[in-house]
């Protein structure tokens, strides 16, 4: 019962979604929208579980006085301030929540991602040594694409931006298309396994 009921529930939900795809009746479309709303509601409850995991990690670190536990205070206080501001004052444009988002989260996110510009250069040096034909192709393509995205590429050779566009629209599309076919077939196979109860890893262990 502990396993068969959820498998049955998943099968019914999935079977309905397959059927509604082929039935363009308003009642089916409304049911589809309602079910998608249901998933958002369930997802909101699931977020609490994720937040609990974050809190537990940091509270545990503080309680055991592990190295750097002071930073856990910073994370928890930041969370509490942003959350309370959002819930109490609202999240509309021009609100304090929006101010914190624009002046704290956006710059932090952009700066953290821009740090990769420095580290990716050293990673590229280690990775991009042309030791095999495949590595050489990877290296040459990356160099042409990078040069094609900046004015100096056109300055070196006028056709570099056009070459970049051609790489992006022909061989890259060909490879991505092959990957997408594989992904789509994999999604269908995995979905069928989930609906038929063959794939049960998402239900965890136990009986």
């Amino acid at each position, binding site marked *: 019962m502990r396993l068969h009921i959820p498998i049955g529930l998943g099968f019914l939900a999935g079977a309905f979604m397959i059927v509604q795809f082929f039935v363009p009746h308003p009642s089916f479309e409304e049911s589809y929208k309602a079910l998608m709303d249901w998933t958002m509601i369930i997802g909101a409850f*699931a977020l609490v579980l994720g937040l609990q995991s974050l809190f537990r990690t940091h509270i545990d670190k503080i309680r055991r006085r592990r190295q750097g536990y002071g930073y856990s205070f910073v*994370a928890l206080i930041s969370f509490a301030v942003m959350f309370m501001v959002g819930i109490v004052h609202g999240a509309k444009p021009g609100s304090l929540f929006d101010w914190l988002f624009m002046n704290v989260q956006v710059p932090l996110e952009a700066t953290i991602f821009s*740090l990769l510009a420095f580290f990716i250069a050293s990673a590229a040096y280690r990775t991009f040594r042309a030791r095999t034909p495949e590595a050489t192709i990877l290296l040459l393509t990356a160099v042409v694409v990078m040069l094609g995205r900046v004015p100096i590429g056109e300055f070196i050779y006028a056709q570099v931006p056009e070459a970049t566009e051609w790489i992006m629209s022909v061989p890259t599309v060909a490879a991505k298309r092959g990957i997408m076919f594989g992904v789509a077939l994999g999604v269908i196979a995995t979905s069928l396994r989930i609906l038929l109860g063959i794939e049960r890893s998402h239900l965890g262990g136990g009986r």
Partner: protein
Amino acid sequence: MPAAAATSSTIFGLSTEIIGIWVAALLTLAIYSFLYADNPVYKVAEHIFVGISAAYGAVILYYQALLPKLVKPLIIPLIDRVWHPELADATSPRYTLLVPMFLGLLIFSRFVPKYDWLSRWPIAFVMGLYAGLSIPRSVQEIILKQMHGTMLPLLPRGANGGYDFLTGFSNLLLVMGVICTLAYFYFSARHEGLLGRVSRVGVWFLMVAFGAGFGNTVMARISLLIGRVQFLLYDWLPTIGIHLGGPGMG
């Protein structure tokens, strides 16, 4: 993009816009201090980011999912009905929403080891729903569309009515590339003989795609770096009387 506040109010005589620029600039410098070495200033900024991002996600989910889809149509009308029965025009609660609320609450059974198996119900429901949805969608929106996009003319006509060599070559290469890449991902036979050679060409196409992806990623990161440096030079420095010209807040 300058990190400007939308409001123009003041705190202690300073505009919130200027305070915002300073906060953003100090946090930017705190993160860049990592380039020298891992240090407490960087760690503080990093943990602020963790807390703020998690709270941002929670608040947005509350306003975009919980409030309009559960609280307003079910919880508030239910409360009104219980505590304010005299309100005749009160909206009737949408009782069907009790089902996702019940399923959502079952997720919390994870906190009670004896009943944690109940948390499988909402997970199975959502997984089943998306599994069912993804089967026809994958066929229609990926397989059929990509097949359609791959059926290209190998002898295309140009604007003057003659054979367009470059387009024909590109189309041929694209069709060959798709076939070769698919051959590489075909694992039901040994990659020997013809299949081995074709799949090797498929690897070359994959390397081109990965190289292009890497190149684009590098340029995107450099673009972000330029944005942050521009912010510091043209938005933050002018607030302490240093003007370098160029784009600013205007």
